[in-house]
């Protein structure tokens, strides 16, 4: 049974539909990420769950009960705010105890639970400090402890790591996952950072313009995007326009031939059902394309071009290869060799090849 269920939820701000008919089920112990560009409605969805916004239409069920009309202070749901919203006039301990003191708990229970939370986020030594005396990472941990203190059924995290620098963020992502696994609380995180969503979440809901585009596990959403938007938003991708040709089935998967604008014929797995003659797009991840100076003996998909640019980022190099028709294709290789021994350089004629499974065909 899902712990949270959105049932055709809409939210309008004036004429603008911030959330446009979202239906979604989230299950207990999940770490669910709502991902999308800014303004896609993910924060509005989260705020409706917390109770700060009421749906224009549709229902939100928590444990099977409609909570659309329950005020935020009566919901067994807590939120960790993007700005952390720590009370500046209270020290760390009182911030964490704030919610506990508002519930029917005895003084000793409040103290025990606060100590437990301080322990969980390793802030024991800072319990008497005020928020302005803490670093960004410490504030983040206090905010997490405060939102977890009441042992909510559901923890909502609104861009919880947005204010941290890259290195700390990476480390904190794993801490978050550890804490979630330890407590078993259902976490719903809102983020615009796809890497963060991929790292922490067990499932991702990708949103755009108020609608859910795809809900799937991180690997599923990366390998099998169901639309151009999803393929484009998650990671780097080459998009090749073409027309669908013959469709064949093998091992339960459909494969199609695609005639590209430059009249090459490429083979790809069908991400969505297509019929021949239809306009379609091929999505290929750069790291799935092999680059070589000599023509590979056998390859299902083969194109040639000349190296236009090389983006070297240390561990990886991305080759921007210009095809005969002028389009650019990115191919990425891991730099296992020292750079001096690299065999491909600017203006080289190269061959790009990939397997039919590497590419996915999407409709327009």
């Amino acid at each position, binding site marked *: 049974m899902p712990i949270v269920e959105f049932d055709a939820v809409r939210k309008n701000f004036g004429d603008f539909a911030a959330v446009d008919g979202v239906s979604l089920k989230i299950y207990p112990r999940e770490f669910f990420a709502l991902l999308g560009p800014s303004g896609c409605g993910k924060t509005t969805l989260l705020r409706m769950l*917390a109770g700060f916004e009421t749906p224009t239409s549709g229902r939100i069920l928590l444990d099977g009960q409609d909570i659309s009309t329950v005020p*935020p202070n009566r919901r067994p749901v*807590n*939120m960790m*705010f*993007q700005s952390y*919203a720590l*009370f*500046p006039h209270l020290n760390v301990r009182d911030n964490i105890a704030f919610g506990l003191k*508002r519930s029917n708990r005895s003084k000793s229970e409040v103290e025990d639970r606060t100590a437990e939370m301080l322990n969980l986020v390793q802030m024991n030594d800072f319990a008497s400090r005020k928020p302005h005396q803490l670093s960004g990472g410490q504030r983040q941990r206090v905010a997490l402890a405060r939102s977890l203190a009441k042992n909510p059924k559901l923890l909502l995290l609104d861009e919880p790591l947005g204010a941290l620098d890259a290195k700390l963020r990476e480390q904190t992502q794993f801490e978050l996952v550890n804490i979630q696994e330890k407590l078993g609380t259902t976490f719903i995180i809102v983020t615009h950072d796809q890497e963060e969503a991929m790292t922490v979440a067990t499932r991702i809901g990708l949103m755009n313009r108020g609608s859910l585009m795809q809900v799937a596990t991180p690997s599923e959403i990366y390998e099998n995007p169901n639309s151009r938007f999803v393929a484009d938003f998650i990671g780097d991708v080459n998009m090749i326009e073409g027309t669908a040709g013959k469709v064949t089935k093998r091992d339960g998967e459909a494969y199609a031939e695609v005639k590209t604008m430059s009249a090459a014929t490429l083979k790809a797995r069908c991400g969505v059902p297509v019929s021949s003659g239809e306009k379609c797009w091929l999505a290929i991840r750069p790291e799935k394309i092999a680059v070589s100076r000599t023509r590979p003996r056998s390859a299902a998909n083969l194109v040639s071009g000349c190296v236009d640019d090389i983006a070297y980022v240390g561990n990886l190099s991305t080759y921007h290869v210009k095809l005969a028709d002028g389009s650019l294709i990115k191919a990425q290789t891991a730099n296992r060799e020292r750079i001096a021994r690299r065999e491909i350089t600017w203006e080289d004629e190269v061959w790009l090849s990939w397997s039919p499974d590497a590419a996915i065909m999407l409709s327009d």
Partner: protein
Amino acid sequence: MAAGLRRYLLIVVPYAWLLVFFLAPFFIVLKISLSDLAVAMPPYTPTFDPSAGWEGFKAFISQLDFESYIFLATDSLYVNAFFSSLQIAVLSTFLALLVAFPMAYGMARAPDWLRPLLVMGVILPFWTSFLIRVYAWVGILRSEGLLNQFLIWTGIISEPLQIMNTPVAVYIGIVYSYLPFMVLPIYATLEKMDESLLEAAIDLGCSRVKAFWLVTLPLAMPGIIAGCFLVFIPAMGEFVIPELLGGSRTLMMGKTLWNEFFSNRDWPVASAVAIVLLLTLVVPIVIFQRQAERQQEAGR
């Protein structure tokens, strides 16, 4: 070296200003308060004569005494005036807070484009002379004034209310005049407040009222304290408002001071009143400065 000298000059100028225009007059007033009344010009004795030398100076010092202060403490008029001033200042500060807080709260919650206009609205009265604004209240409050005409027209009352020349008029005058000094510091603290703090409080189980008490009010406290001092300090020594609106029955320090000085020509007693008033205000001013310092530290 030149830079050091310039920096030195920069500090010297304001201190010289304070020395000449604050500290020197203060000591002159202090000296007069310790002198005795005399029918002379100036109307007190002793007067300091530098040509008399060291012996003259010693004789001068020996003639100073606390007679005026003892007079103040024993004459019930001055004791009453002091406590009446204190009562009026405290109560009108409290009333100003009651009026100002909702105003400041509303301003801080107003849409972004409207806020500068509202702040402007609060500051606008300063464009007219203080004296004229207080005098305008005479026209509003007197028996045939606008307020009474309006209330009689609406039928709420049949007889005009006697507001002029009562303490009520003084309270109205002080609250009206010093309201901006209360509104602006409270507005400044509320405007800075992150709205998500209230959401966090509600999310953690507070009702809206509880969230106000536990979050909004403590965070607005520096502004409230600043506003209270900015109203209390001038209200304590207020002279114009009780003189114009309060009539003869309202007793305040500022008025007794004026009477002593101009009607009785008793400069020593008038000076003693001034010194007592100053000392009364030094305490809240020091507390106010401490508070401001602490707030600055917290803000860093």
